[in-house]
């Protein structure tokens, strides 16, 4: 079924159409969230929040724009929220001098989950650079499309992407050299 038909069905209040949207976009959304958050449970939480928000705000979606980009924009915001929560928890732990991360009331237990990005090389990238690279590599997005998701100018998206690619290349080369030497 066509994307526009699904959205129109959802707007008419037909729950099965919304479920079809979730089924269609849950895998790419989960992959993107995993690539940003590095944790399956956090990614699932972010995706749940994403689809609930999509359901509640579908009326404000502009049909002339890409639905996937709109979806990714919301997901990106939700993921940033998760990263912020994580950072706050880490700061709190640092202040308290404890070794275990306390659960925050807003998101109980999430901070205790092990965080592991798909590749260690991605740790060297900032969240924006990581998502720009992910959208470019996985989805084939252009700088303009990335800018729509990140809500920045195309030039800024281009700079994020360039820096991410440069850092990754450098790290790949260093890894290659160290393997050769080792």
């Amino acid at each position, binding site marked *: 079924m066509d994307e526009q038909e699904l959205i129109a069905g959802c707007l008419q209040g037909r729950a099965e159409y919304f*479920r079809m949207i*979730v089924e269609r976009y*849950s*895998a*790419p*959304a*989960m*992959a993107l969230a*995993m*690539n940003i958050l590095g944790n399956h449970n956090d990614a*699932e*939480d972010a*995706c*749940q*929040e994403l*689809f*609930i*928000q999509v*359901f*509640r*705000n579908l009326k*404000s979606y502009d049909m002339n724009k890409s639905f996937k980009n709109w979806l990714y*924009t*919301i997901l990106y*915001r939700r993921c940033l929220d998760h990263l912020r929560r994580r950072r706050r928890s880490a700061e709190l732990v640092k202040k308290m001098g404890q070794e275990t991360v306390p659960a925050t009331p807003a998101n109980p237990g999430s901070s205790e989950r092990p965080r592991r990005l*798909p*590749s260690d*090389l*991605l740790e060297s990238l900032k969240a924006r650079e990581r998502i720009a*690279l*992910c959208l*470019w*590599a*996985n989805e*084939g997005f252009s700088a303009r499309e990335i800018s729509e998701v990140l*809500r920045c*100018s195309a*030039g*800024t998206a*281009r*700079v994020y992407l*360039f820096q*991410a*690619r*440069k850092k*990754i*290349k*450098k790290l*790949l080369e260093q890894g290659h050299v160290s393997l050769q030497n080792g």
Partner: protein
Amino acid sequence: MSRCKTVSFFYALIPLRPWRDLLIRRHIEGCPHCQAGLASRGESRSLFVQEGTVSSGRTLWTGIESGLADEAGEPIKTISRQAPSALRRRRWAVAAALLLVLATGYWLLKDYQPEAVSVASAAPARFELEYVRVDGQPANAVIYQPQGSDMIIIWAGKNR
């Protein structure tokens, strides 16, 4: 090659995004040497999780269903499409107001002369020289200031 180094130098020298974007568009995107220093799409893709390998499963839908059913809970924060531009407008307004205040302040103060000038001109009228007297006679006075101190000691003795 030398041009690539120059571009790289200026890229690092000026950390402004519009400038960097210009360098990327004008040189880096079309330069094979510079492109060789960037990770390719394939290399980058190998670092990320692909959608085919992710299982969202039933738990995701269950969570969404329960989230939507839970109307009593806190409403989820909505995204505001106008927020970034509204914020930008507010920033511009604050910047413009500051500029206006600075310009007005400058215009008001540019002809202002500090009071020190009038005090200086009035100083001769206010200055008065008097003898230090002891028993009605000019005294033998010594002014003493210890080194490195602001304290001044005036010693007045009877003139014999």
